[in-house]
């Protein structure tokens, strides 16, 4: 099985600046993420913090400005065929099941295409069997009727199951789920997340779960990476990040999951001072200030992503 290792990812967008000059927008700034098989890593952060940009770089919908992505330490080339090979191992579930399925095509068509493209099936009988297997693995029944339908004839939850089935069709080893439940009704969110979790255990998938929601991030993932304005501000084992957030922004996020009965959770910008293991690269602690140079990393000894990153930072400084 496969470990996805993304190191020092960076993405600059050229946007319209003032006057004639184009400005650069650093959507993602030096983010490293490692996802191991059978593990879920949650990527949380506010809107516009660059989460989707990372997801798109990881499935090569967007070219990274710099940084490397390796699968089991192997770099995979950029050509058409290499990208196809890469995508047969890394797949993605999109945020909005109402727009990620083509309204003009049947479910059968949309599930069959990846099976054929990636050479999973070689005959009609095999194809039928594989389709039914996929439908069963995402708990969609009756399979035959749903396969014949168009997306608008399905509910949001059913559509997202179809989208998950489509992502599973090439038999990937890494699954990137970009806010897979944020467009769904509250009552079915946990079902879908539970399905993703079961699939992860069944197929030993490495899952990157992108979300706004700290509660599900904590429940379904072993690690949490918190992003803000394109940078990682805090990362570590889920329980530690949620129960003892060090970065004021993380404290803010945790507090924002509201509970009217509990005492207000006080954001303490100096809490990091009591944690010598936290690397703080700037002294500016104002949470409200829009200063993009704020960059804190909570590093944990067992976090390979951080260690690799720190090691390379150190080597860059000495050389």
């Amino acid at each position: 099985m496969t470990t996805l290792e993304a190191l020092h990812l960076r993405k600059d967008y050229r946007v319209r600046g003032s006057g004639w000059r184009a400005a650069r927008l650093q959507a993602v700034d030096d983010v490293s993420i490692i996802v191991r098989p059978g593990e879920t890593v949650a990527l949380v952060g506010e809107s516009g913090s660059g989460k989707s940009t990372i997801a798109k770089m990881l499935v090569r919908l967007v070219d990274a400005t710099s940084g490397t992505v390796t699968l089991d330490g192997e770099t995979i080339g950029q050509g058409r065929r290499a990208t196809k090979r890469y995508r047969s191992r890394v797949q993605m579930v999109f945020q909005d099941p109402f727009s990620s399925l083509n309204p003009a095509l049947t479910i059968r068509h949309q599930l069959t295409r990846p099976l054929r493209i990636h050479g999973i099936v070689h005959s009609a009988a095999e194809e039928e069997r594989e389709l039914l297997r996929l439908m069963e693995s995402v708990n969609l029944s009756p399979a035959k009727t749903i396969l014949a339908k168009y997306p608008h004839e399905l509910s949001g939850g059913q559509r997202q199951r179809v989208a998950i089935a489509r992502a599973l069709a090439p038999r990937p080893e890494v699954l990137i789920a970009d806010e897979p439940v944020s467009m769904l009704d509250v009552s079915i969110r946990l079902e879908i997340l539970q399905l993703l979790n079961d699939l992860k255990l069944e197929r030993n998938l490495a899952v990157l779960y992108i979300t706004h929601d700290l509660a599900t991030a904590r429940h379904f993932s072993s690690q949490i990476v918190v992003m803000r304005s394109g940078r990682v501000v805090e990362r570590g084992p889920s329980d530690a990040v949620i129960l003892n957030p060090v970065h004021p922004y993380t404290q803010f996020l945790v507090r924002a999951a509201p509970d009217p009965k509990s005492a207000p959770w006080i954001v303490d910008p100096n809490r990091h001072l009591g944690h010598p293991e936290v690397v703080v690269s700037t002294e500016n602690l104002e949470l409200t200030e829009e200063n993009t140079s704020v960059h804190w990393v909570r590093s944990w000894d067992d976090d390979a992503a951080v260690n690799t990153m720190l090691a390379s930072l150190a080597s860059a400084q000495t050389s």
Partner: protein
Amino acid sequence: MTFSQQELAEPDLSKSEPDLSDETGGRRIVRRGSWKFWVGIAICALFAIIAALGPLLAPNPNQTNSDGLQAPSLQHLLGTTNIGQDVLTQVIAGTTGSVIIGVVAGALTVVLSMIFGVGGAFLGGKWDEASSLLSNVFLVIPGLPLLIIVTDYVQSRDILVIAVVISLVSWAGAARVLRAQTLSVRSRDYVDAARVASESTWRIMLREILPNLMPIIASQFVFGALGAILAEAGLSFLGLGAPGGRSWGSILFFAQNAQAISLGAWWWFVPPGLCIAVLGAALGLINFSIDEQINPRLRTLAVLRPKAKRGGK
């Protein structure tokens, strides 16, 4: 999604409920055509049938007889012209000509705007810039004067030639509309999903994007046909139409030349004028209803009304 502090600590999985959101009816209503659409289609079908049967119903519309400028009678249902041609026969023959012009020009407009609008937007980069430039240039060229110059210039003034010329000067607007829509469809998630599935560029264009452009392409066809029929009527009226004119516009031209209005020969100019107006309105209705399907802001009323009706049942 909000969680209580307790849930934040341990989300309760047993609470999730069965999926009930299947019953959203909003989208189904949209798929049904409105009355505008069917009225428009019916009128267009009628004209199409007349146009197709034209050569049988009116084999020689220019045949003259001795009694000119007669009011409608049983023998000549729509009267005769000043040189004794039967107006009804002429109008039927004119229908054939006008409909051919509409269909040919509409089709050519669609082809051109697909090449320069859809193609440019889909390929992006240099292609997009070049085709945008071209369509912008054609957009700012004043249509009617160019039309007059070109029709004056070309040697053979066949009905087909005129249709081609009309669509050459008027495709740019359609190309702009299609370009905008292609850009919008191209950025939808399902196109990204197809790319993640490693679909080839051609398949993405033909299977993922094009079907979702169909309504707007249809509406551009209708719009192009409407514009061409009107433009041809205008050209013929100015005497620049196909000689031996077999279109509604050329009937109007001859009526004007013979001073039909001052002679009070209403049966000569009212029928072709009415035909132009009715077919134009029918095409407009089709276009409106397609617009309603595409444009959610126009759609709201149409969605609300059937719902209210349903509640009353």
